[in-house]
């Protein structure tokens, strides 16, 4: 028995040293892809679409692990403590990784510590009502909301792209809407179908999921979503309102450049795979192609934007 343990510890020691030295040939073993939300959620679904193609490009298995909690913050604070060898990568969400450190006293991480290697999709906000609602267009909605102040509008999380988007839209349309936060996009859907809230400020992916039960009134993006070709953008209808959530993949601070480049290239290649594009677009996501440098620029730009918005709302942490 003693011999066995000796052998075992020797083996572990050897594996540990070898993998330490051999960083040059990245990747040479399985990569863990950490999802900071529930299995079955949208962050999981998008990563699952990438999983097989990523394995093909990188030539190693991709293992999905879930570290949920705190709206993703538990996972991202773990990122800052993870060994920066490229064998653990994290799914990231904007504006979450910007808004959480701005509003929480101790989110467990700083936005700068989340080193995005690629941002692959954008999910714009969409204003939706029930299919059988008397509200048929955005114009109807604005008129209805003017007549019914404090109209309840559901959405996912707070502060989030949905909640901040509701505030932004109220401002540009001069309305008084009452945002009701639900614990996830899926949780808000039954409240709409059951008539407990009149409308949802949700994501395009939700409108694409329930085409027979939900009527999308307008999309908060620069251009229309492929899955919702008949739904106009807010801009087309005269409201300057663009808001939504981005998804990307990140590595811990201090990850070597060659590793980051390999991952950036791999995600880029996967993002151009026609089957990946089709699956993503069918589900209501809009493809984006932000490499490492462009991702950083996007995060910096949005940080300024959200800081001002949160300050205006009095939500910035003291």
């Amino acid at each position, binding site marked *: 028995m003693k011999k066995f343990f000796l052998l075992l510890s020797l083996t572990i020691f050897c594996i540990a040293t070898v993998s330490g030295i051999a960083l040059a040939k990245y990747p040479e073993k399985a990569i863990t892809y*950490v999802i900071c939300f*529930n*299995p*079955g*959620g949208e962050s*999981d*679904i998008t990563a*699952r*679409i990438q*999983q*097989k193609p990523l394995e093909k490009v990188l030539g190693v298995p991709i293992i*999905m*692990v*879930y*570290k*949920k*909690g*705190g*709206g993703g*913050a*538990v996972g991202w*604070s*773990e990122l800052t403590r993870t060994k920066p060898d490229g064998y653990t990568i994290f799914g990231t969400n904007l504006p979450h990784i910007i808004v959480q450190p701005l*509003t*929480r*006293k*101790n*989110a*467990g*991480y700083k936005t700068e510590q989340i080193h995005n290697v690629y941002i692959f999709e954008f999910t714009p906000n969409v204003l939706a009502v029930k299919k059988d609602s008397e509200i048929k267009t955005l114009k109807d909605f604005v008129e209805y909301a003017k007549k*019914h102040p*404090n*109209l*309840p509008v559901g959405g996912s*999380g*707070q*502060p*989030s792209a949905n909640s901040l988007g509701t505030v932004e839209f109220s401002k540009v349309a001069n309305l008084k809407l*009452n*945002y*009701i*936060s*639900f*614990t996830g996009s*899926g*949780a808000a*859907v*039954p*409240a709409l*179908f*059951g*008539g*407990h809230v009149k409308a949802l400020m949700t994501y395009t992916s939700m409108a694409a*999921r*329930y085409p*027979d*039960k939900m009527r999308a009134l307008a999309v908060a993006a620069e251009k229309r979503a492929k899955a919702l070709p008949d739904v106009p953008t807010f801009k087309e209808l005269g409201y300057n309102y663009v808001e939504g959530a981005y998804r990307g993949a990140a590595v811990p601070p201090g990850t070597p450049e060659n590793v980051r480049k390999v991952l950036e290239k791999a995600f880029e290649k996967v993002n151009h795979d026609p089957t990946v594009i089709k*699956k993503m677009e*069918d*589900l209501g996501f809009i493809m984006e192609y932000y490499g490492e440098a462009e991702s950083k620029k996007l995060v910096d730009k949005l940080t300024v934007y959200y800081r001002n918005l949160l300050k205006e709302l009095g939500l910035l942490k003291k």
Partner: protein
Amino acid sequence: MIEALSGALHHIFTVKIFLMIIAGLFGGLLTGALPGLTATMAVALLVPFTFTMEPTEGLIVLGAIYMSSIYGGSFSAILVNTPGTPSSIGTTFDGYPMAKRGEGDRAVLIATFASVYGGIIGVLFLLFLAPPLAKVALKFGPPEYFWMAVFGITIISSLASKNIIKGFIGGAIGLLISTIGIAPIGGDVRFTAGFSQLQGGIELIVALIGFFCIPEALTMIGQRGKKFHLTEAKRKKGIFLQTFKDVMKKQGNLLRSSILGTIVGILPGAGGSIANLVAYNEAVRVSKEPEKFGTGIIDGIIATESSNNAVVGGGMIPLVTLGIPGAPPDAVLYGVLLLQGLRPGPELFTTHSHVIYTFIISLFFATIFMLPVGVIAGKVLHKTVVRLPVRFLAPLIIFLTIIGSYSIRNNITDVYIMLTLGVLGYILKRLGFHPGPITLGLILGPIGEAGFVQALLIGEMLPNKWMIFFKSPISWILIILSLLSLSWPLFAKKLAKEWKVKGDEVEG
């Protein structure tokens, strides 16, 4: 529908599918029996394997895993007093006392029969009444969820009938623990004492392991000198048939609990964790000998185990008809459906009817196969636990708790939380606080809080925002049920006296 059904039957009767179902059942049973690995995790872990299969086959395997992991949770609940999944919390109340008496194998058999029964009822509802029942799910809005949580809390009065005050204090402790972390509405960070790790709050499973498992292991260690084995097994002949007859005699309890489980399953966000306790509560309330619950009686196990497996079918009702997952594992199944390009909803029953009917029928067969699989696995597990001396069993349990609490979120902080709560649970247990009410508070806290705040926000539209809580008939039903449940112990005492007079001719 008949056509689709016969097509489904044709599709299922192949050796490959049957082998897949059986493999799924064994896998699910094992994960369910290990505390910390829940049905949701079991299903999520196996999703990648289904990618290489056809959509229908993948769904069949996942359905079998889901069904049997809920059932598997009863094994550890009965044998070591630790619910393997939150759906078996109530099974510890009567299952473990029975095992301690040396009737562990009987308790496992009762759980098996009840689980199969409940599973079948749930699937039948899914097969025949899905569309109308799905509408019930939508009637539940924030105010209704708030009242449901209130009703759930009142269950404590029957869970802890021996000391109601301590029961409610325990419930309050659970509610308070549930407020740690990010607020469900508004996103404020609460009671984290500066630890960023606590933002995610206390995970129910982690608390469950801490409150149930650790005190049990510590008690075992405390008694190691006196008792060499945890329990003794008294082998009885003909136990299989006798137990089957005993369980089947309780048709009222079986049906009631299965229907309750189906209904709770239909409600999005609720699940087996609530269903088993509600069913237990109702079984106590209807019983003529409520004082016997908790001492190891057959009715307690029947109620919890039939209801939690009925949740499986019930939870899929809103999933397949509306695309709204009823219970947490359904959310994972939903993801699989979407990835396979199948959108739940009416379309699923028309254009993809062969997929969905094959799936439902396979679930039916999986439930029936659970009987032989469960009997074999139950015998083996029971023998292992009974034969292992306590000095091996206690460290083994503690080892499993550490793995279990880590694996739920892959977070080492959860292990520390679990151990802390374990020590707290041990002290509380010594002071007479049962873990049941504490975990009930923990389960219902977030549901009640979210419902309360959301309802009040929606109520801003009304002249008086508090009126939102009294607007719908469902709210009133829940309010009345809560009052009834709360005052029941008072009635029960009176009624018990009356029954005692007539009790001679009434058989327990």
